[in-house]
């Protein structure tokens, strides 16, 4: 550990790094510098062990069987529901629906809630910096119901123009769907303010917490949001599992989304009655071990604590911003005053994909592209950006390596 990682850094990066076996695997013969955690995070040992233990030694189906393996799996599965409940301070575990990811969580709301609650002339308000997962489902729900999609604009730093809420929020607004943390820009949005202003107009609020969930504490009761969605694979958990939080009294008004086993009360060929929430929304055999692994992941986050995580990532962000700002011809995309863990940029005369490929050869994994946020790219007038996104296991050395490699790209392209 060199001096640079310890300054102002309350979290032992070396210790954290030792929890992630992926970081020990060289990439193109170089030590891996993983800077794509906004796409998906690496997995810590406790999560790997849970997955292995459950698939290998304690595997059984959930909910329906009376034998020990299944009762234990069911208990572990429902324990994760309680862990999630605590993780976001939900009022009850009945408000926690397991899905396959943020995308499915939002689709569930857009379909089940949207198609029963939206009417022609109603409005759905999203922000200008949403991920496609929080745009397209609303476009389709609006198309299906005759509602209108409205866009809350942002400024050139990537900050939402909340003053526009005065006119955009009105009696026709049924739902505001907004990201807590932009995956393309790093902006932390004022979701508390948005929630209270939307509620004042009688509108519900859905928070896309896909990025937030791994970086900052969430308290759905303090926020008073109506829905909140996140993915397991972005919070150090397995793929194929996600969470939808919904206020129980709202979930109760919603028809099933998918149908099949488990979500029913009684089936006859003439008529089917559906189970209570949250199971009503969990048709079919769930991602049993992945849900249990998500529990481990959230406990792992808890064991570090968001205060530590926040301080560490703040330090990294400041350090990285300083480094990149010194690079001539580099322009940061996303410079909000409130920002977290994401450094997106463009280099004059060098396309993001070329940067991505060249950095990869240096063992540095960054993301190059539109980050599933094409309207955001369009707003900034770029086809793609390069994005380094940070997590608990990143160090200042990772950012040093990034800056050095960018310098070399510039040299290569100038030559």
């Amino acid at each position, binding site marked *: 550990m060199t001096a640079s990682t310890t300054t102002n850094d309350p979290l032992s990066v070396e210790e954290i790094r030792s929890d992630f076996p992926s970081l020990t695997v060289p990439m193109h013969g170089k030590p891996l510098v993983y800077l794509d955690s906004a796409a998906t995070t690496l997995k810590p040992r406790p999560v790997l062990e849970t997955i292995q233990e459950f698939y290998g030694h304690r595997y059984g189906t959930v909910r329906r069987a009376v034998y020990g393996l299944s009762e234990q799996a069911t208990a572990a599965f429902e324990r994760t529901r309680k862990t999630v409940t605590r993780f976001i301070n939900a009022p009850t575990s009945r408000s926690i629906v397991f899905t396959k990811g943020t995308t499915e969580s939002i689709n569930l709301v857009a379909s089940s809630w949207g198609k029963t609650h939206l009417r022609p002339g109603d409005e759905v308000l999203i922000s200008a910096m949403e991920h496609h997962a929080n745009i397209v489902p609303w476009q389709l729900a609006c198309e299906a119901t005759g509602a209108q999609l409205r866009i809350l604009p942002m400024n050139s730093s990537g900050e939402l123009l909340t003053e526009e809420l005065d006119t955009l929020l009105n009696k026709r607004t049924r739902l505001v769907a907004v990201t807590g943390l932009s995956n393309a820009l790093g902006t932390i949005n004022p979701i508390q303010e948005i929630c209270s202003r939307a509620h004042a107009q009688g509108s519900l609020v859905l928070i896309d917490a896909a990025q937030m969930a791994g970086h900052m504490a969430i308290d759905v009761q303090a926020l008073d949001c109506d829905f909140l969605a996140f993915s397991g694979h972005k919070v150090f958990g397995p793929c194929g599992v996600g969470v939808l939080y919904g206020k129980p009294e709202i979930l109760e008004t919603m028809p099933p989304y998918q149908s099949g086993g488990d979500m029913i009360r009684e089936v006859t060929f003439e008529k089917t009655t559906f189970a209570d929430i949250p199971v009503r929304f969990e048709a079919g055999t769930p991602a049993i071990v992945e849900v249990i692994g998500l529990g481990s992941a959230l406990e792992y986050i808890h064991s570090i604590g968001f205060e530590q995580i926040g301080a560490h990532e703040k330090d990294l962000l400041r350090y990285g911003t300083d480094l990149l700002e010194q690079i001539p011809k580099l322009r940061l995309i996303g410079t909000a005053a409130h920002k977290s863990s994401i450094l997106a940029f463009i280099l004059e005369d060098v396309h993001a994909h*070329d940067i991505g490929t060249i950095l990869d050869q240096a063992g540095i994994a960054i993301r190059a*592209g539109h980050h599933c946020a094409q309207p955001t790219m369009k707003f900034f007038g770029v*086809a793609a950006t390069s994005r380094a996104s940070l997590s608990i296991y990143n160090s200042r050395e990772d950012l040093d390596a990034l800056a050095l490699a960018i310098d070399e790209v510039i040299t290569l*392209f100038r*030559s």
Partner: protein
Amino acid sequence: MSFDLYQQVILDHNRKPRNCGALEGHTHTCHGHNPLCGDDYTVYLKVTNEQIEQVTFEGNGCAISKASASMMTQSLQGKNIDQAQALFEEFHQMVLGNLDAESTETQLGKLKIFQGVRAFPSRVKCASLSWHAMHTALTQKEDEVSTE
């Protein structure tokens, strides 16, 4: 840090693309677009009696796609349609990794420099975008091609 893919020839074509600009009086054209990375090119051809008289391209994208478009225009000059389509096939198979341009007799010439791209699956489409556009323009199936 320089390696196989970003050779000087490619960097040079990226900086100073040849035959760049719209072509008045073209007989064939096709717009090629890769929404994934934003690569966006239009290829123009002037063909008389099956003979390609002139090829230009217009657009923007990464160094690989731009150098590829630029070098394509050079290598098509003076070829006839069948030769152009055959060259497309060779180029395409080379970047997909199905044809070893080092050990096989081909018409690829300088284009062999793009062989390195086969080690980068996500970049194969960059190298082949303008070629797909050219191929489609000559086949005249549509005037829009998209690779993802």
